[in-house]
């Protein structure tokens, strides 16, 4: 009985559960890709409407991969890309307090700005993978699922992203 219930995404409760589990990461994915919050939300809607329309064909266990497939197939040409604007949470200094020089705070703020710029300049693919890992704390395996690529390919993107970020940040100096 319960299995039946769980199996049916057409069931409002199950549908909402799927929504609650995956909507945020899908939203963030689109935001990292295009930097457009409005567009990210609309894409989430589109993906979940598709899921609803096909809810009879998609068992609960397949909802995740179905959503990610939809996400990667959405035609998004109508949106303009924007800069990905990011905020930093409360500052946790990299070094312990006794190591901090008077200039340390300023230097730190400077670095953060450089990092954000460098992230904005990353390619779409690198930025998306990088931020899903750093912000959403997704494992490489999960990122591979979301982007519909292999784990190796994710590792490559991360590697390239790191190298490119370092180069850019050092170039800003």
């Amino acid at each position, binding site marked *: 009985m319960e299995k039946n219930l769980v199996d049916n995404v057409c069931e409002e409760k199950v549908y*909402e559960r799927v929504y609650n589990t995956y909507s945020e990461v899908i939203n963030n994915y689109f935001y990292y890709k295009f930097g457009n919050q409005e567009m990210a939300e609309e894409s989430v809607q589109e993906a979940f409407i598709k899921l609803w329309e096909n809810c009879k064909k998609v068992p609960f266990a397949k909802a995740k991969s179905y959503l990610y497939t939809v996400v990667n197939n959405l035609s998004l040409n109508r949106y303009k890309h924007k800069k990905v604007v990011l905020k930093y949470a409360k500052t946790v200094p990299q070094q312990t307090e006794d190591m901090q020089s008077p200039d340390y705070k300023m230097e730190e703020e400077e670095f953060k700005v450089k990092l954000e710029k460098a992230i904005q300049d990353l390619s779409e693919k690198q930025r998306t993978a990088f931020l899903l890992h750093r912000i959403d704390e997704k494992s490489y395996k999960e990122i591979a699922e979301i982007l519909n690529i292999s784990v190796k390919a994710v590792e490559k993107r991360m590697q390239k992203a790191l190298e490119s970020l370092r180069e850019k940040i050092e170039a800003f100096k």
Partner: protein
Amino acid sequence: MKKKYNLAHWLDNKIEDQSIEDVSGLDTLKKIKHYSRQLEKPEFNKDKVLENLKSTRTTKKKKFNWSIAASILIILGISSLVFILSVKDFTSQINSQETVLLPDDSKVILAQNSKFQFNNWFWNFDRTTKLNGQAYFEVAKGKTFTVKTNFGKVKVLGTRFDVKSRDSIFKVVCYEGSVKVTFKDEDNILKKGQFITYQNGIKLEQSNIYNEKPEWISKTHQFKGVSLSEVMQQLEQDYQIEVDITQVSEDKRFSGTLPSDSLSLALDILSKTYQMNFSVINENKFIFVDNDQE
């Protein structure tokens, strides 16, 4: 292979800082690792989006239904137009009969002052006809043949029968085969030589008949045990006259044949049978009185 993406593994905390000590810019990389973790998630109003989602979901559904409804309407419209265009109407005038041949060679003889309708193009799919008045049918064998009238329905497969649906009378006579008569929710099967009559919504009689064809076709009327007033009603209808029998005392039932194309002969037969005289008021009005000579 593992070495190739060592930075990726280091970022994922799979390997220690020491493993990548030889990489240039390690200091910057450490900073990237540290500060990128402090980035906040972008804004996402989960509930608002879900709300929107639900409303779009329903409107989408509605739109979907509308388009289906619209196409159904268009199809219905076109087909009913075709249907209406292919309906054929026949009306027989007062005092004249009309013979209609249907696409499958079924024959319909309309009694005077009757209306008949059928659909020419759809005939092979649907042998349904409409009748208002009286008609005699000789139906070719085939799919169910239906006669709809204001009062009831008659269904047959292939046979000869007569349907009368006039004023408040609904009468069906079966001359061959069998017919199914539907009146309100009641079904009656008539076999050869049987007839059924309804009047004012009540079954009046169901009995047998012995002639081969209705009298009106052979321009005679057969009566069997009917009251004088009924005979006169038939006469009034056949000849478009008015007959006054209020002064006739005799009330015996009449059985016999009256012509429907010779008024003088009919009047003569009646006055002899009932021992009464009639006087002509004018061309269309007659009064019968008792013949007091006896």
